C-alpha cells in the first residue's frame, strides 16, 4: 500500500511541476491575443478613473468617455461590453471594486431587454476568461459557471484551459484584429461610424408600448440590487442611465426602475433625446456624433 501511495504522491508532484509551465504559456498567449486590453490595464494599475461606465454595447458605443471626462473635469473610463447582461455588469463591478473604488458608476440600463432573457445579452464569460489568471476574475467565473475555484487555485493548467485554443492562435497568428466591439480608445470607448446609418426607418417612434414586468428574470433584478448594495457599502455614487434609441416608446419603465432601486438612485433618462437620425448608427446604438452629444447631456445632468 505504501508503494502505491508514494507513487501516487510522486505522480501528483510531477503533474503539478509540469502543468505550471503549460498554464503559464497559455495565460501569456491569451493575454497577448486580446486586442481589448481594458481589464489587463485595470489590473496593471493603468486605470484608476474617478468615474466608470458599465453596460452593454449601448454604453460601449453610446457614451464618449473622453468627451465626458473633459466636460466633467474628471477621469472617466468606459467598461461597456457588447452583448453583456446585468449579471455580467455585476461581475465587472465586483472585479473593478476589488482593484480600486471609483467615485461614480454610470450603469447604462438597456430598455425593454435589461431584465428579460435575451440571447443578444448574455454573461460574457468569453470576455473574462482571458484574464482568469487574476483572482478577482476567477472568483466571478467560479460564481457564474462550473469553473471550480479550489481546483483552479491548485492547477494553473485547469484554470487556464478554456483559453488553450485561442492561446495557440496567438502563437500561430498573433493578436486579434480589432472590430467594433473591441477597438477601444484610451478611455475604453468604441466609436461607431457616422458615415453609414443602419437605421430601420419603418419604426414608428410615435407608437408606444407598456413595459411588461412579467418577463423579468429574478437573477437580473438580484444583480441590480447587489450593485446598488455594493455601491452603498463602498460609498460609490451610482447613476442609472437610459440612452436614446429609435424604437417605439417604452411606457412605465422609469416608474418600474424607481420601484426597483428606490428614490435615492438617480435615473438619468435620455431615451427621448437625440432623436435626429444623424446621431444614430442603428436603432439601438449611437454613432460617434451621438456618443459625443450624449456625453455632453450626461455631464449637464450630473453637474446640474
Amino acid at each position: 500500500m505504501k508503494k502505491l501511495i508514494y507513487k501516487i504522491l510522486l505522480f501528483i508532484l510531477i503533474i503539478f511541476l509540469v502543468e505550471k509551465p503549460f498554464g503559464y504559456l497559455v495565460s501569456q498567449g491569451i493575454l497577448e491575443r486580446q486586442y481589448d486590453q481594458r481589464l489587463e490595464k485595470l489590473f496593471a494599475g493603468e486605470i484608476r478613473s474617478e468615474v466608470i461606465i458599465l453596460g452593454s454595447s449601448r454604453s460601449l458605443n453610446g457614451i464618449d468617455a473622453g468627451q465626458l471626462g473633459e466636460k466633467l473635469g474628471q477621469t472617466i473610463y468606459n467598461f461597456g461590453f457588447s452583448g453583456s447582461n446585468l449579471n455580467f455588469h455585476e461581475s465587472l463591478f465586483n472585479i473593478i471594486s476589488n482593484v480600486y473604488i471609483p467615485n461614480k458608476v454610470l450603469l447604462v440600463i438597456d430598455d425593454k431587454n435589461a431584465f428579460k432573457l435575451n440571447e443578444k445579452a448574455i454573461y460574457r464569460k468569453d470576455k473574462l476568461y482571458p484574464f482568469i489568471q487574476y483572482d478577482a476574475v476567477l472568483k466571478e467565473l467560479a460564481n457564474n459557471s462550473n469553473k471550480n475555484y479550489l481546483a483552479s487555485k491548485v492547477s494553473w493548467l485547469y484554470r487556464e484551459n478554456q483559453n488553450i485554443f485561442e492561446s495557440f492562435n496567438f502563437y500561430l497568428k498573433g493578436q486579434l484584429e480589432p472590430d467594433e466591439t473591441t477597438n477601444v480608445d484610451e478611455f475604453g470607448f468604441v466609436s461607431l461610424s457616422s458615415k453609414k446609418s443602419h437605421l430601420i426607418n419603418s419604426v414608428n417612434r410615435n407608437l408606444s408600448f407598456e413595459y411588461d414586468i412579467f418577463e423579468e428574470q429574478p437573477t437580473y433584478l438580484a444583480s441590480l440590487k447587489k450593485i446598488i448594495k455594493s455601491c452603498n457599502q463602498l460609498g460609490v455614487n451610482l447613476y442609472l442611465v437610459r440612452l436614446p434609441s429609435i424604437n417605439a416608446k417604452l411606457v412605465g419603465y422609469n416608474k418600474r426602475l424607481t420601484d426597483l432601486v428606490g428614490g435615492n438612485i438617480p435615473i438619468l433618462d435620455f431615451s427621448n433625446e437625440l432623436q435626429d437620425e444623424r446621431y444614430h448608427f442603428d436603432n439601438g446604438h449611437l454613432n460617434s456624433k451621438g456618443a459625443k452629444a450624449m456625453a455632453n447631456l450626461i455631464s449637464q445632468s450630473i453637474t446640474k
Partner: protein
Amino acid sequence: MLFNSIEFLYFFPLVVGLYFILPFRFRWLFLLLASYTFYGLANGLLLLLIVASTLIDYLAGIKMDDIDTKKGRKPFVILSLISNLGILCLFKYYNFFNDSFANLFQLLNIPYLIPSLSIALPVGISFYTFQTMSYSIDVYKGKIKAEKHLGYFALYVTYFPQLVAGPIEKASNLLPQFKTKQHFDYKRITDGLKLMTWGFFKKVVIADQISPMIKYVTDSPEQFNGFSVLLCSCLFVYQIYCDFSAYSDIAIGGAQVMGVKLMENFRRPFFAKSLSDLWSRWHISLINWFQEYIFFPLGGSKKGRRKAYRNVMIVFLVSGLWHGASYNFLIWGLLNGLVIVLTLRLTKLKSAANKKVGSFINSVWYRRFLRVKTYIIFAILGILFYTNDLNSANLLGESLFQGWTDDIRGILMNLENERSHILYLGKSAIQFIALVLAIFILEWVHYFQEYNGSMREFVATKPALVRWLLYIGVTLIIMAFSFDQEIPFIYFQF
C-alpha cells in the same frame, strides 16, 4: 454526482481509502452509505425511489425463496415486475403515452381530460430497475437463491460505480463479490486506475468536444447540407460511444480498484462487420438482458425463421423505448431491428454473391468495407437518436442527400469562412484538428486491442520512463480539456 466533476475527484479517493482501512465487516455498510451519498447529493428525494424498489424486491425475493413451486412464487415476481415497471412507466413513459393519446383524441375531435405530469426523470432509473428485475426473475426461476441480508441486497441495487449507467449486473455476479474480502492488490488497483483514466480521456477529450458540434447542427438543422449532416452523424456515433463507454470504463475501473469485477460493456463496436455484430459489442449488459429476459422466453430463434424475426423486432422495439420515451427512439429501435432482420433474410443471397466474388471476401479490404458500411448505417440511424423530434430528424434525413457540391465547394474555397460552418461545425480549425487527432488515438488503441490484446499489458512491458511519460501526458491532456462545463453523461437520461 458526476464522474467528470471535481467533487468525484475528492469523493473517490476518500471512499477507496476508507474502504481499505475499515474492517471487512463494516465495508458493505460503508459502501452502501457512500452509494446513497453519491446518488442522493445530486438527486435528493429521488433516492427514496431506489430505497422503495430495493425493499419491494428484497421482500419479494425472500418470499419467493420460501416457496418451492414456480406457481407459488408467481404472485411475488409479478408484484416485483409491476412495481419496477410501474415506477419506470410513471416517471419515464406516462407523459409520452398520455401526450400521444391526447394528440390522437384531438385528431378525432374527442375531448381528452387526463393531464400530463410535471415530474423529473430520475437519473439511471432504467438501469437500476432492469437490474432489480433481473434479480427477481432469477429468484423466481430458481437460478439463484434470494439474498437474505438486506444490506448486501441494497448495495447490489445501489453500488455507486455502476448505479446510474450500468453495466447492468446480474446478482449472481455482483453479490458474491461483496461478500468476499478484498485485499489490497497493487496491480489490480493500478489497472483499475488506468482504465478510469482512459475513460476520462474518452469522455473529456472526445465526447465533450463533439457535444457542442452536434448541438450546433441540431439547433438549426435547416442550415446544413449532406456533407455536414453525414459528418455530424459520424461524429455523433463517436460522441455517444466515447461518452457511454467512458462511463463503463470509469465504473469498471473504479469497481476494480475496490476489488469488484464488473462485466465488459463495450467491445470495440466499430470493428463490427454487420449491425447484429455491432449490437453484440455495444452495451453488452443491456443486450444480454434483452436476450435472457425477452428474446429467449419468446422462443429465440428456435421456433422458425418468422418467429425469430418477430422476436428480433420485439427486442429492438423495447430497446428503442428503453432508450427514451419518444417516437424518435421508437423508430430508431425498429429500424435497427429491421436492418438486422433484412441482413438475416439476405444471408443466402449474400453467400451466393460471396462465392462469385471469390477470394476478395477474405481480403482485408473487404473486411474494412464491411466495417465502414456498418459504421455508416449506424451513423445514419443515429440521426433519430440525436435529434429532438421527428421533424428535425426528417429535415436532416432529407438534407443528407442534398447540397454536396455546395458543401465541397465551400470547404475548398472557404469564402466567408464557410469551412467553419460546414466542416468544423462551429469550432475553430485548431479545435477540429485536435478532435481528429484524439479520435485517431482512440482508433489506434482499438486496432491494437482487436489484433494484439490488452493495451495495458503492452504498456506494462515498456520502460518506466516511457510509461510515466504516457500517464503524465494523458493526465495533462485531460486537465487541459476539462473546461468549465461538466457535460452529463448522455445515458444518464435513460
